């Protein structure tokens, strides 16, 4: 990483975003995946990210989840830097211990669910709270059952993932992520691997989350109708930059940039 030592040590004040990408770039060799990204997400906001493949949208989520490192810039979460930490009044790249502390604020749901196959649905949801948060088995079980009930999977709590359909697995995955009480929840194309009939199961759960919780959410998706329905803001990515962003009504109904228009009409044709 380059000289980020002069970036602010913390974000303060009433308008502080829950997530801030400040001048963030990511390169794979010669390929520039994200180019000087500036992105603020307020607390409780639900932001959808759309765009063609290769536009960098999944990388945004993965960097926030610290699954990938960044090449320049700083990411802030809840006012504090995520990718960097303070040392002697300046910012230096974060070490493993600091990363782990900050990572606790973020949760993620994956396209391929990634449930632990050797554990039941209930055990999957209890794993994080017991091992990381230090909850007792009973407390963790209570929390897990509550969340599984919320996503409609309480009857299957003692089933292994191999016995569950894709939609069911994804719902368990959402409960599992929620059990950690993150401040920011990331959804990486969570319906892309599902059969069309069961997509609704999962989107309904996410709708419920948006309606009933003040969780900050960031979602990469191809489900345009869904994104339009529930998002507070939509960002269209192209070539590693935000091409256009705005409210769903504006972006979908009245896109200003040509590339946005092209993308949206191509999606519409594909049905």
């Amino acid at each position, binding site marked *: 990483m380059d000289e980020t030592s002069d970036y602010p040590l913390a974000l303060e004040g009433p308008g502080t975003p829950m997530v801030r990408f400040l001048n963030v770039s990511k390169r794979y060799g010669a390929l520039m995946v994200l180019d000087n990204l500036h992105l603020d997400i307020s607390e409780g906001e639900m932001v959808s990210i759309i765009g063609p493949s290769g536009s960098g949208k999944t990388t945004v989520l993965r960097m926030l989840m610290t699954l990938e490192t960044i090449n320049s810039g700083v990411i802030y979460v809840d006012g504090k830097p995520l990718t960097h930490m303070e040392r002697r009044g300046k910012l230096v790249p974060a070490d493993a211990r600091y990363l782990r502390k900050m990572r606790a604020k973020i949760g993620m749901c994956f396209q391929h669910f990634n449930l*632990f196959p050797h554990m039941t649905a209930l055990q999957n949801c209890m794993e994080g709270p017991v091992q*990381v948060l230090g909850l007792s088995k009973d407390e963790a079980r209570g929390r897990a059952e509550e969340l599984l009930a919320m996503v409609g999977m309480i009857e299957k709590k003692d089933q292994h993932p*191999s016995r569950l359909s894709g939609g069911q697995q994804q719902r368990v995955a959402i409960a599992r992520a929620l059990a950690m009480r993150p401040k920011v929840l990331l959804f990486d194309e969570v319906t892309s691997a599902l059969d069309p009939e069961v997509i609704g199961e999962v989107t309904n759960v996410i709708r419920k989350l948006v309606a009933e919780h003040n969780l900050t959410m960031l979602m990469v998706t191809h489900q345009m109708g869904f994104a339009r329905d529930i998002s507070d803001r939509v960002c269209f990515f192209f070539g590693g930059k935000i091409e256009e962003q705005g409210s769903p009504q504006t972006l979908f109904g009245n896109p200003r940039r040509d590339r946005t228009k092209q993308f949206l009409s191509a999606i519409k044709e594909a049905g």
Partner: protein
Amino acid sequence: MNWRWDLAWQVLPHLLEATLATLAAAIIGYSIALVGGLVMALGQRTPSRILTVAVRETVEFIRSTPLVLQIFFIFFVGPQFGIRLSPWVAGMIALGLHYSAYMSEVYRGGLEAVPRGQWEAALALNLSTRSTYMRIIIPQAIVPAITGIGNYLVGIIKDTPLLSVIGVAELMHTASSIGAENLRFLEPYTIVGLIFLLISLPASGLTRLFENWLRRKLGMG
């Protein structure tokens, strides 16, 4: 050439007793290898490049050289530097080390077979590295590794005769002594051969049964 039944019956009890020593040696060596192999496999996944390469080269060296030579080395080199190892201890170290290297390859294959998404999900839940390995990755790595691990049990039983060369009183050694005493090797060595057959054939079947049981218990496959 006549088979002398009287001699056969006379030596059988001694040989059966020695079989216990053989099985003990195999089980001890196997237990060492089960743990040692995992250590060597994990040792090739450390962040330190030097450690990773060192472990890798050690594993390759052990796998490329004869076990009997390693047994001799460990038994004889100690005294040259003042450390006396009993035949049993030297034998167990050699057997354990040798098979650890083989097991590590099996474990490595198992670890590599675990999908990347599992690592990412564990990270997303903020599990520590230790928890990730112990509770998520290793339980999944073991299932594809079971066949290989099971095969080596049979293999290690068949390698125990090599311990006879440094005087470990297992089956082969006992048979050779008896043969030398009676100046007749037909009965002792034939019985030894039969005993090995009777051990290794069912052992293969048992490992397959265990494999299936483990698969079911872990809820996969």
